[in-house]
């Protein structure tokens, strides 16, 4: 590996994007992710790139749509209320099969909510948010190092599948400083972009980037093709981390910064002679069902921990499908679950299954 730096999560996302070959960033300020824009505004003009502050999130995502149509690597970032505004463009990008990267550093909602960390946009990220039958690849880093790794991957996956990749982080990850180690040379993968609308130079038929197909039979086939693509991604790209699961009495399920609090709870439990494990989804879509199959027989129960009212827990229940009890604990509104919150719930579950 190469250079080690102490950096803020949001800045690492921006630096990683540049290392991935992203030279176009369109955004609109919103806490707690604006350092991404600051970093891009400073760096991109010096390396021949474009930073543009749009008039709104709606305009920013449509600028992304335009830049992605030309085949360039492009990114925008925002936080929860701003992501809601971008959902129109997200749906069009899905419909037109354009590769692009969207970052959501989540804060508490609904509405204007607050500016403290949250995971309450899980449904919006993984189940739709915009209209129509579409999916995004949703990557959930849980450290600053992983913000770097997954941002690089987000660009490669977007190009590989002509899909939008989302980095779904929270205010904790965006704002915290940690050591990150950058590679000396980045693995930037290149993919065919002969579909791009970049001027045909009188050498080929004209390319059209569109999400509209008025003939229902054509639109149905277009949707079937999209679903086939999503199935391929689901088969190829599931990612997860299994931690201390071998003899776990209860397996915690958590992503992002909450997974790190769960590791704290696992340590605390060990001191009390209780063996807990952790299943940490890294891809939230595709949801890592394969990982659950490896551990389904081990625990007496699963406990999902989130900074929400319980969103990912629905996917855990669908995956476990009644084979084991699935419990939930969480905090909302920008409050962060503590090791004690988790341990209290663990004790309650142990009591039930004694």
């Amino acid at each position: 590996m190469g250079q080690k730096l102490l950096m803020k999560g949001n800045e690492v996302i921006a630096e990683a994007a540049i290392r991935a070959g992203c030279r176009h960033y369109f955004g609109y300020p919103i806490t707690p992710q604006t350092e991404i824009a600051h970093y891009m505004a400073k760096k991109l003009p010096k390396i021949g790139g474009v930073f543009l502050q749009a008039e709104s999130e709606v305009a920013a995502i449509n600028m992304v749509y335009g830049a992605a149509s030309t085949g360039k690597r492009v990114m925008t970032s925002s936080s929860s209320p701003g992501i809601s505004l971008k959902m129109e463009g997200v749906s069009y990008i899905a419909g037109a099969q354009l590769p692009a990267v969207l970052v959501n550093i989540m804060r508490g909602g609904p509405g204007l909510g607050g500016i403290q960390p949250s995971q309450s946009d899980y449904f919006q990220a993984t189940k739709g948010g915009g209209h129509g039958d579409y999916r995004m690849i949703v990557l959930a880093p849980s450290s600053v190092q992983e913000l770097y790794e997954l941002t690089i991957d987000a660009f490669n996956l977007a190009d590989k599948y002509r899909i939008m990749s989302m980095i779904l982080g929270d205010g904790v990850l965006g704002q915290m400083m940690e050591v990150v180690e950058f590679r000396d040379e980045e693995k930037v993968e290149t993919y065919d972009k002969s579909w791009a609308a970049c001027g045909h130079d009188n050498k080929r038929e004209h390319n059209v980037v569109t999400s509209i197909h008025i003939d229902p039979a054509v639109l149905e086939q277009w949707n079937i093709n999209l679903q086939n693509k999503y199935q391929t991604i689901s088969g190829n790209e599931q990612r997860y981390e299994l931690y201390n699961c071998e003899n776990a009495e209860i397996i915690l399920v958590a992503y992002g910064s909450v997974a790190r609090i769960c590791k704290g709870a696992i340590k605390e439990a060990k001191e009390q002679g209780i063996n807990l494990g952790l299943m940490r989804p890294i891809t939230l879509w595709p949801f890592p069902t394969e990982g659950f199959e490896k551990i389904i027989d081990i625990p007496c129960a699963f406990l999902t921990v989130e900074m929400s009212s319980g969103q990912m827990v629905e996917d855990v229940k669908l995956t476990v499908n009644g084979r084991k009890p699935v419990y939930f604990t969480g905090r909302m509104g920008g409050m962060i679950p503590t090791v004690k919150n988790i341990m209290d719930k663990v004790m309650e579950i142990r009591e039930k299954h004694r």
Partner: protein
Amino acid sequence: MAVVFKAPKALCDVPMHYCPGCTHGIAHRLVAEAIDELEIEGRTVGVSPVGCAYNNYLYFNCDMVQAAHGRAPAVATGIKRSLPDNIVFTYQGDGDLAAIGTAEIVHAATRGENITVIFINNTIYGMTSGQMAPTTLLGQVTTTTPYGRDAKLNGYPVRVCEMLSKLEGPAYIERVSLHDVKHVRKAKAAVKKAFQVQIAKKGFSLVEILSTCPTNWGLNPVEALKRIEKEMIPHYPLGVFVDTELEV
């Protein structure tokens, strides 16, 4: 025999879906002729709107990108910032540009975004069957103003050229009409000039084209052309609103 009139190369040889008497076909032709004469088809990327012209990506022979309702100037910005040496144009109706897309057009204009906007003003929403547009004239009957547009209820028709000409970003803004041959020729010159302004990297250019919608106006094609002259031009005066070349 010498050929004096032929189909522009920048238009695909396919039937158009527009209603009889609709002037979209003429406006398309003017854009295509400008692209041909300036020999820019190979490096042009057009942006299709939402509205009757939503699928003009089937008609223009250059690369095309279809945009969400009103967002064409933002999409065009993304394209132009990625391909600064290419030619980028949007083609938008009055609902698209002056209602849902007001923020996008104003900010593209004030940034002096080096794109060309072809703005079709026919004072009505055509695609969705004749509702009030921001440009609908006072008293005009539409499916959502069945008793005529009332300023107290619906406000006043928007004059886009006048509004945008107050900004410092635009390099060229002109309003033209397609109601007779003389004006079509003037419109052609304006469209071509708008592209020339972009080629010279002078900044934002917009041509507003007063157009017909015989179907939703409930008029025959000839009456519709007369309505432009008699009712629209008095409210939407023709002329050049911005031309930075003429400034001292």
